[in-house]
């Protein structure tokens, strides 16, 4: 079969610029073949090459005492002690989920799970950070329904519990939902595996499902914005098979217990192409593959199609020469293909053969290490000043603060998400000590007395209003959520969802947000261990809020430190760590009650944040903290209300008074940072105050728990509501919104 001749049209259709094409010619010393053009096109796509983000990502701190593996491998690795390591990473599947929500989300789950077990870790937990447009729109309900069903359908069946995450809503996500999935695995420190092709002459195995035509150019699709024709892209979305993946997990983990394996990598974006050349690149070797040997489920596939297919549930591995039999026997037991498709070579070339015919011969270094890197122009948008302008004198004071509280509790971003997470198996493996719905998820670490906390956060509205501050807050809030759960923040993985990077204002948002995140990661000593960048989140020229999602991993020194937001009994004292300022910019309140996305996000002092976190953690470790809850969306009033109603089987009221002067809406619903709500027995108040004094953190006594009412008074306002009414607003909202239409 002859390949098409390369024309300008074909080059353009592969999303390569003229300069990039010239670079290809320089690397090869000749014009590329059609297969080679396809390979360059996917490897140099934004999705695979990080060509626009690299220069900025390099400014993030990536090392620390606990970090065993930073960015650059399939996932980050953190030392948990006792010979155990946490392997974790977050990845986006936004574009496929918009085109085909069920399969897009399902294969997002499958893909990130492979990134984790490929390193030798058993995947034990998934979290998702989701963003949708308003549910009044039927299309958004369809997208959310499909995404949740896809996560549920794949995650449950593959046997990895979905233990938490978050769901938020804003208009900007209507044409571009976000589906970011984080997976955590546990591995023995001395049995970690890497995606490296080592040992000249070693066999290269293809294992897992067979190859079809699905997902060809998926990586390229993820590197473009959407237009009215996006629906036609449905064939570039892959179809997942969780059963096959479950078998693949078990077979790979079994193989890893033998001595047969040299290196392994999943076939994700850009499939066989990306896995083989990245393994060769990391190993400093070459690799030769005969596409004719690749197991297929469709006839007549060209080498180009085989190399670019993104069929799911496949892995590439390099085994020790002579150990072929071990690999084949294990995979046969699980009814999975395991075929030698090539060899590791010494020539540093990625050679693709179709039988005897050479279809591609590319220097690995040129393809991977010398991929284009762009420092794209960045420019502060002209409208930035305008959106940051907020004159509170023009915002009318609420007539009834209780009504505002009920509206905020019912706002889908704040409302109870049980209707979502009850569709996920969140208990498998018997580790879930604190499940979905709390500030962070807490998992026990079997075989030790410790635990792991995980939180995902990223307020796109803050980042839109001030990317640098928003980036800082994303890290700080995630850290706070891990701390209020009883853990010390250790490291993050991040997923950076932005618009079209060739637009200078988008690039400015990106650069600023990364700068803010880097500052916060340094201040809080939580290095970045990896993650993913998703650009081109635009439809018809309309970009999403710049939305960096932070996945924070924390370690509980003792699982008994696990702490939840709900009050634990009547008569406890309720206190606030930190300080309330008159800040309403970027708040959920302004959005819900005044229709405004305006102002500067709350200020954040990273040194103060660090002290608040240390204070809270020390108090929790001292054993007297009964409940802890971060003040975030909806401010102090919403945090207080959530502590009353978070446990469906036990509602406990509260009576507090706020003595500060100033606007009641700012006191109640302002989203000032570095604030944590605690409850404790009165007798322990002195101990808390002593700890807080040492850390220079103000403690304000707000009131007491108990009764069946939410009573909150200030100088100029009173909220007096039955707790049941709060619960109804909060718990009833999402099911009602999803049922409409």
């Amino acid at each position, binding site marked *: 079969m002859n390949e098409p001749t390369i024309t300008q049209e074909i080059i353009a259709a592969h999303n390569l610029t003229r300069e990039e094409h010239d670079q290809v010619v320089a690397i090869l010393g000749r014009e590329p073949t059609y297969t080679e053009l396809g390979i360059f096109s996917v490897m140099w796509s934004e999705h695979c090459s990080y060509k626009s983000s690299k220069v900025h990502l390099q400014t993030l701190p990536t090392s620390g005492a606990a970090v065993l593996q930073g960015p650059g491998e399939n996932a980050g690795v953190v030392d948990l002690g006792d010979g155990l390591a946490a392997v974790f990473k977050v990845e986006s599947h936004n574009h496929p989920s918009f085109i085909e929500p069920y399969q897009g989300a399902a294969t997002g789950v499958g893909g990130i799970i492979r990134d984790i077990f490929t390193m030798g870790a058993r995947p034990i937990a998934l979290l998702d950070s989701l963003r949708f447009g308003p549910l009044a729109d039927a299309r958004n309900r369809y997208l959310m329904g499909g995404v949740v069903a896809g996560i549920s359908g794949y995650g449950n069946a593959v*046997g990895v519990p979905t233990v938490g995450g978050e769901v938020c809503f804003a208009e900007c996500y209507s044409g571009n939902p976000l589906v970011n999935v984080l997976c955590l695995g546990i591995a023995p420190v001395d049995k970690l595996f890497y995606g490296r092709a080592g040992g000249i002459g070693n066999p290269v195995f293809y294992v897992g499902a067979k190859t079809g035509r699905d997902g060809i150019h998926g990586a390229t699709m993820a590197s473009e914005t959407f237009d009215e024709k996006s629906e036609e892209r449905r064939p570039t979305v892959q179809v997942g098979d*969780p059963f*096959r993946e479950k078998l693949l997990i078990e077979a790979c983990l079994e193989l890893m217990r033998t001595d047969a394996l040299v290196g392994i990598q999943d076939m994700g974006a850009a499939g066989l192409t990306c896995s083989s050349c990245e393994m060769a690149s990391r190993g400093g070797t070459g690799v030769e593959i005969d596409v004719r040997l690749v197991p297929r489920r469709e006839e007549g596939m060209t080498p180009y199609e085989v190399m670019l297919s993104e069929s799911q549930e496949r892995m590439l591995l390099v085994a020790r020469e002579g150990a072929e039999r071990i690999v084949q026997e294990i995979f046969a037991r699980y*009814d999975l293909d395991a075929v030698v498709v090539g060899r590791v070579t010494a020539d540093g070339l990625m050679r693709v053969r179709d039988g005897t015919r050479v279809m591609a011969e590319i220097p690995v270094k040129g393809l991977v290490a010398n991929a284009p890197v762009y420092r794209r122009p960045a420019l502060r948008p002209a409208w930035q000043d305008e959106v940051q302008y907020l004159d509170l004198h023009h915002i009318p004071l609420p007539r009834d603060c209780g009504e505002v509280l009920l509206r905020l509790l019912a706002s889908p971003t704040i409302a109870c998400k049980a209707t979502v997470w*009850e569709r996920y198996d969140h*208990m498998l493996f018997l580790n879930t000590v604190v499940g979905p719905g709390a500030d962070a998820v807490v998992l026990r670490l079997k075989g030790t007395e410790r635990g792991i906390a995980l939180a995902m956060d990223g307020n796109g509205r803050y980042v839109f209003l001030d990317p640098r501050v928003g980036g800082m807050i994303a890290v700080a809030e995630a850290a706070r959520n891990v701390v209020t759960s009883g853990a010390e923040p250790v490291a993050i993985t991040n997923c950076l969802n932005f618009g079209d990077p060739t637009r200078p204002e988008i690039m400015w948002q990106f650069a600023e947000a990364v700068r803010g995140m880097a500052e916060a990661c340094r201040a809080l000593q939580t290095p970045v261990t990896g993650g993913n960048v998703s650009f081109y989140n635009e439809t018809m020229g309309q970009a999403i809020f710049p939305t960096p999602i932070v996945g924070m991993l924390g370690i509980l020194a003792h699982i008994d430190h696990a702490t939840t937001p709900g009050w634990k009994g009547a008569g406890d004292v309720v206190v606030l760590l930190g300080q309330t300022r008159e800040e309403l910019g970027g708040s959920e309140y302004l959005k819900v009650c005044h229709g405004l996305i305006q102002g500067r996000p709350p200020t954040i002092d990273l040194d103060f944040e660090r002290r608040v976190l240390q204070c809270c953690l020390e108090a929790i470790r001292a054993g007297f903290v009964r409940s802890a809850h971060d003040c975030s969306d909806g401010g102090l009033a919403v945090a207080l209300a959530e502590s009353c109603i978070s446990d469906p089987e036990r509602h406990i009221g509260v009576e507090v008074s706020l003595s500060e002067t100033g606007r009641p809406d700012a006191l109640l619903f302002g989203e000032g940072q570095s604030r944590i709500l605690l409850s404790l027995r009165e007798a322990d108040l002195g101990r808390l105050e002593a700890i807080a004094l040492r850390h220079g953190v103000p403690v304000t006594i707000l009131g007491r728990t108990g009764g069946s009412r939410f009573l909150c008074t200030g100088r100029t306002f009173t909220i007096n509501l039955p707790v049941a009414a709060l619960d109804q607003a909060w718990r009833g909202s999402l099911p009602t919104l999803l049922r409409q239409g």
Partner: protein
Amino acid sequence: MRFGIIVFPGSNCELDCQWVLEKVLGQQADLIWHTEKELKDYDCLILPGGFAHGDYLRTGAIARFSPVMKAVERYAEDGGLILGICNGFQVLCEAGLLPGALLRNTSLAFICRHVHVRVENTATPFTTACRPGQVLRVPINHNEGRYYADPETLRQLNEKGQVIFRYATAGGETTDGANPNGSLDNIAGICNERRNVLGLMPHPERAAESLLGSTSGLLLFESIVRSGRAASPMFR
């Protein structure tokens, strides 16, 4: 006691069952791959939760043809104790070892949460450690948990005391509101006439440690340990 946990391709609760039996209860629990044809020296078999063979076609429909199932049937005929949890219950129904079927939840959605079930019969090897009418707090985790049987079968189940667990309120009332999936008569678990095979949709192994929020599921395993020795082929 020695438990055998049957592992089908796609099962996923086998390690959890093993954890509870070994670490919490100090029993021996071996994993048995579905191609095994002989089942010897086990005092109780467990068919764990998960998605056996991907639950493709219909839950449990392919698993019943796994090679191990012939041996499981013989084991049941010999009076051995078999506990089917969730997907294991579905497999036992498909295999004809328990009557009835498990249909899709009325909500048409997967449900994972804690529910309450009332113990209807304590005169079985699986419930001797329970009090009559005791309410257990255990999680469910399924998409197809709506128990269905034809009226005649249902009548017999009720008459012969084969309904072992019903969904109930925390106070023990079997209301519609307490029924999470639309099961007939709030049925959450049943046994065969001989009372050596029990299937239930809730996961007792997920309610076996206070750290995880409930210990009432332990009662099932403790009952088996208590009464298992007498009933199992090995000790008979």
